[in-house]
C-alpha cells in the first residue's frame, strides 16, 4: 500500500523521522507510482523556487547606483564653462531698470561735466542789506578775495564818499565829461 501525498512531501522535504524515512525510502525505491509522485513534487518545488520574488530593496539600490553612474558619466562628458562663457539669466524688468539707471547716471555725468567746463567762476555779489552792513565791521573780511591784489593806502582817513563809483575812459575824463 502506497503512502499518501503528504508523507511523500514530508519525505521529499526531509522532514520525517529516521525510522519512517527508511520505510518510505524502501517503498519508493520499489514503487513506480510513488517514484512518479516524487518526480512531480520535485518539479513543483523547482518551479516555486524559480518564481521566488526578487529582493526589491536590492533592486532599488542597484537602480540608484546605475542612475548615479549615468549622471557621473554625463557630467564628465559636459564641457567646463569658465567665467567669460557663463550664461547669466536676468529678467527683463531688472535689465531695463539697470540700463535706465546707467543712462541716467551717464547723462547726469556728461551734463555736469559740460556745465562745469563751460561756466566761468563768476564772482557772486554778497547779499548784504544795509541793516546787516551797519552791524558788520568796516569791511567784512569774508567778502574780500584772499588771493586778490592788495593795495594798502596810508591811513590818511580823509576819503569821503563823493558819489557812486565812476568808470570812465581817461580821454573822456580829461575832456571834463566825468567831472562835476
Amino acid at each position, binding site marked *: 500500500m502506497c503512502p499518501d501525498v503528504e508523507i511523500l512531501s514530508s519525505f521529499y522535504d526531509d522532514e520525517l523521522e529516521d525510522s519512517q524515512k527508511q520505510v518510505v525510502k524502501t517503498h519508493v525505491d520499489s514503487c513506480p507510482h510513488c517514484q512518479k509522485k516524487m518526480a512531480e513534487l520535485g518539479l513543483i518545488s523547482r518551479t516555486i523556487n524559480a518564481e521566488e520574488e526578487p529582493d526589491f530593496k536590492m533592486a532599488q539600490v542597484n537602480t540608484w547606483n546605475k542612475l548615479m553612474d549615468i549622471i557621473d558619466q554625463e557630467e564628465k562628458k559636459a564641457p567646463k564653462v569658465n567665467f567669460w562663457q557663463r550664461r547669466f539669466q536676468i529678467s527683463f524688468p531688472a535689465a531695463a531698470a539697470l540700463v535706465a539707471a546707467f543712462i541716467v547716471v551717464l547723462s547726469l555725468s556728461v551734463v555736469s561735466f559740460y556745465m562745469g567746463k563751460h561756466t566761468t567762476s563768476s564772482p557772486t555779489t554778497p547779499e548784504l542789506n544795509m541793516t546787516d552792513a551797519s552791524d558788520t565791521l568796516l569791511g567784512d573780511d569774508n567778502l574780500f578775495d584772499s588771493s586778490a591784489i592788495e593795495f594798502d*593806502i596810508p591811513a590818511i582817513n580823509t576819503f569821503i564818499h563823493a*558819489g557812486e563809483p565812476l568808470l570812465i*575812459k581817461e580821454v573822456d575824463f580829461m575832456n571834463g565829461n566825468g567831472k562835476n
Partner: protein
Amino acid sequence: MVRTDMRKLFFVFCFFISPLMIFAQEGAVPTSEAINVDSTDSQVFNMDIDLKVQDGTSAQVVSDHKAHHQTVSGRPVSLNINGGNFKAAVRFTVYNINADNLLLLTQSTIFFIKDGQRRMLSTVKSIPIKAGEKVLFFPMGVLKDGDKSNFNCVLEMEVSKYQPQPVSLE
C-alpha cells in the same frame, strides 16, 4: 568666441568709464596754471593797474601803487583796497569782443563811513574800450567842488593784448 570678447570689452568699458563718472563732478574751471597761454594768445591780456591818491586841491599824487597782472578773457582780476576809512573789493573782467574791441566789466563792493554810519555800496559797471586805452575807476566817486580838501582815490588801468616773447634760437 565673439560673445566672450564682447563681454570682456564690456567689463573693460565699465572699468574705464566708472572713474569718469566719479570725477565728472569735479569743477572743470581751468586754473590759471592750467591755461595753455600759447594756444590762447588772442584771449590773454596784460592789465597794468595804478592806484593813485590825489590831493583834491592840487591834484598832486600823494600815493601811488602799481600792479601788473595777466588774465584771460572772462577771468576777473580782484583787487582789495584798504583805504583807512574805507575798504573796497574790486573785480575787473575783460571780455574780448573782437580783434579791436574789448569790454571792461567792473564789480565793486565798498564799505565806508558816512554821517557816522557804516555803509556798503555794491555796483557793477561796464565800458567798451580798445586795447591800450586808459580807463579810470573812482571807487568813492569823484570829488565835488566843495570837497576839494579831501583826497581822490582813482584806479588807472590799461588793458593791452598779450604779446608772446620771440623765442631765441641761440
